[in-house]
């Protein structure tokens, strides 16, 4: 809210995707994000919810400079990312890290998982393999893995463990913002709650901010301070977690909340009748 203190400030962000067309005059584009704006304060978790195609991942990719921005601005710590030019400075790469949905796919199956962490350290100028391994081991312990896990291959680990490796890789560089794109969606319930709590603990320890992108409203509710609701590339509603869940203003937010399964069976007949009525009314 307080723009002077914002760590990340996204303003009027617009992203077009190229649909191909060989020549410049035949090129067609589609707008996947339109005028999206939000801020994230240091130590804050900003939840971004929406369904597939809503542009929530694109927002994360734009912040990570993995997607080309068509319009608007993204400022990190006061610096407009557009001033970087084509090359992203190493310092930004260190400050802004990412954890993605599929940990198995984001780790090379042929490398021992410890290498994912030591490689990141080497890239960021930490000298000495011994030092790097030591820091990797510390990072592993920080995320609840053991030193012995450093020498495992991805295939030998569970999904939850692999996601811990991914988090260790992201946090070992002491970033200030981590983009978590569906970071717990692929995990089992008991593992999921462990990882959610781990992320919260690490935030308490290091003051890192999260841009937490997820489709699961329950997960977002539990981790976010503030939430933005994206629909077809437009931020339709923004508010504190409490506001979004107790007094949603936009009809789409209300529809999303109505569609998410409840935590217990009580009242489900009424919920079903209500859903059918809403769909019938919309038809």
């Amino acid at each position, binding site marked *: 809210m307080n723009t002077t203190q914002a760590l990340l400030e996204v303003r009027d962000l617009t992203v077009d*995707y*190229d*649909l*191909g067309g*060989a020549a410049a005059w035949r090129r067609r584009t*589609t707008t*996947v994000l339109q005028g999206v704006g939000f801020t994230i304060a240091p130590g804050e978790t900003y939840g971004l919810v929406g*369904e*597939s*195609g*809503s542009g929530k991942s694109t927002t994360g990719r734009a912040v990570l400079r993995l997607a080309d921005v068509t319009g608007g601005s993204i400022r990190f710590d006061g610096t407009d990312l557009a001033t970087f030019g084509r090359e992203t400075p190493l310092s930004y790469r260190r400050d802004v890290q990412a954890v993605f949905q599929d940990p198995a796919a984001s780790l090379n199956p042929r490398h021992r998982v410890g290498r994912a962490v030591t490689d990141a350290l080497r890239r960021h100028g930490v000298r000495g393999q011994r030092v790097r391994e030591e820091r990797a081991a510390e990072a592993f312990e920080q995320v609840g893995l053991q030193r012995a896990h450093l020498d495992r291959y991805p295939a030998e680990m*569970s*999904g*939850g*463990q692999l996601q811990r490796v991914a988090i260790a890789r992201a946090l070992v560089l002491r970033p200030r913002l981590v983009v978590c794109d569906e970071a717990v969606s*692929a995990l*089992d*319930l*008991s*593992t*999921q*709650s*462990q990882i*959610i*709590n781990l992320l*919260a603990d690490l935030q308490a320890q290091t003051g890192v901010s999260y841009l937490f992108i997820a*489709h*699961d*409203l*329950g*997960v977002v*509710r*539990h981790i976010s301070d503030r939430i933005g609701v994206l629909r*077809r590339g437009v931020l339709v509603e923004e508010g504190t977690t409490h506001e979004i*869940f107790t007094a949603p203003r936009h009809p789409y937010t209300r*529809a*999303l*909340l*109505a*569609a*998410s*399964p*409840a*935590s*217990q*069976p*009580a009242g*489900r007949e009424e*919920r*079903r009748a209500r*859903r*059918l009525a*809403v*769909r*019938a*009314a*919309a*038809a």
Partner: protein
Amino acid sequence: MSAAVTVGRPASASPLRRQAASLAQAWRRLRHQPATVAALVALVLIAVAAAAAPLLAPFAPDETDFTAALSGPTAEHPLGTDDLGRDTLSRVIYSARTALLVAGGSVLVAMLIGVPLGLLLGYKGGWYDRLGSRGLDVADALPGLLVGFVVIAVLGRGMLVLIVAIGLIFCMNFARMTRAVTLTERKKPYVEAARVSGLPHRQVVFRQVLPNLAGPLVVQGAVFLGSAIKVESALSFLGLGLDESQPSWGGMLGLAAEHQADHPFMALPPGIAIVVTVLAFNVLGDGLNDALSGRRPTRRRRAARSAARPQRAGGIPPASAAVAEQHPRAERPVAAAQTVRPEPAALELRDVTVVADRPTGETVPLVADVALTVARGEVLGLLGESGSGKSMLAKAALGLLPAGVRLGSGSVLLHGRDIAGCSDRELREVRGRSLGVVFQNPQANLSPVHTVGRQLAEPLRAHLGMSRVQARERAAELLDLVGVDDPRRRLGQYPYQFSGGMAQRVAIAIALAGEPDVLIADEATSALDVTTQSQVLDLLLDLRERLDMAVVMITHDLGVVAETCDRVAVMYAGQIVETGAVRSLFDRPRHPYTAALLAAHPSADRDVDRLPTIPGRVPLAGEWPPGCHFAGRCPFVRPECTAGPVPLTDHVRCVRAAEIALEVSEVAHA
């Protein structure tokens, strides 16, 4: 090779998969590759020249003119003549015929031998594959020309022998490639789904797997056409190919070699012809490869479009008269969901044990002593995390266990009939008629190379003996039943033209085609958006009510269970730890694991500061403790918990269930 026992999410689609549907796109990409277009033009010209040789060539290929023997280029013989005075230009043109015939024939022979061999090895797997692949390795190690020599030595010279010889040289490559593609495709859920729908192996191989090969085969074929010409030329050059009388570029080169010193120009025309033709085939192969494996730029646009299109609102369209007729059970009011009805179970699992045979010789249990019943019209939730064995249990019930995993003991009763001991053929019939299944990834469930209408009609024709017209009619009704708009038009579309939710509706329609008594939904809505998920879940509930089907809802999502299930069985590390009516299980869980799961569930309608977690992780198959499987993570553990196997007593597998009932309930509602 290793017996993989993990049940993962379906692998993402390989770029090969939507080929057939994107041929038009491939063609468009091809047109933007100038080199490929040039190669194609060159090959067409060569083919035309070969076909019209008698019209184009100034002389007959064997017409001799001793007065002009060994002449260089002249007005009469623009490319000169050979030692018998035969016109080189004419011979080059006629040789194109030979080259294309031999190349085409040999590639055809290679495919006819190699493709079935590769399909057999890849699809059968196991010992077939191990022996066969080693055989391929050995065959591959033999130098190709040597194989050619041997075949020609045995069968003598001649066009047909040459074709067979070259075909044999190349068939190993086709077999190898076919095997690789088959291996990857065989494991995909849509092939499994095809098997679930009861298709015989022959059809699975030829209709599901083979179309995926079309792209790679075309590419390889083009490249090998070029290679075949090289081999043919080499053999003819050595005098082992065709007789003197048959003009061939290789033979012409051989002759030119004899006169290398005095008439070096003679080697040029056939040499250039070989180089140009082979090069054109290779460039064409490369171009085709690029065009077929190219990224599909329209995916994003399609997603955007389907998101923009308002989802079909309202649950289920009214069933057409025919649907109601074919389901005499339909419209029967559902009895109160909570009561366990006394009528015979639609599906009953008795003491089912599933084991994996590890390569080391040990046998590892994956599912232990599961007893479970599902009544007609009931929705049973099978709740568990990954590694709980819930999907393996479903596969066991379906007779679809992967290689290396088998039913250790127990029986699967469908309306009282044990199907565990059924033959493959009987099982197919059962799966087609009595058991339907929907898997997680809708796109992977459907074959990418066939229209939705065809995939719907196939089981109808196979199991219900419908005619083509009837099947199409019924397919449209089924699509209508599951809420797909404009079903007749959409029958002609391919799966990629459907959004995720719509594709899952199609998968459900296919599962319903055989009018099954039991529908197994294995994480069927886990990959969908929440609004789509709620629509598909409401659809399943509606179908259950209208068709009085039993539904087994396999899921890790407590919310899905809460919204849809009548009864729940909670699985942990291969065992059922608790079963109960859904409300009492959520209100008063009796097993500590159930309670911990309920507590760890982050829900949109509940606000807690910090999620309670379950320390540690699910023990892997083979590392189960002798006593209670949950003991290592349980806050209520006592020495007696680890003493020995814990039986399921009064629907809960916990030795302390009675004494800790209150505390366990409190954990869930902390």
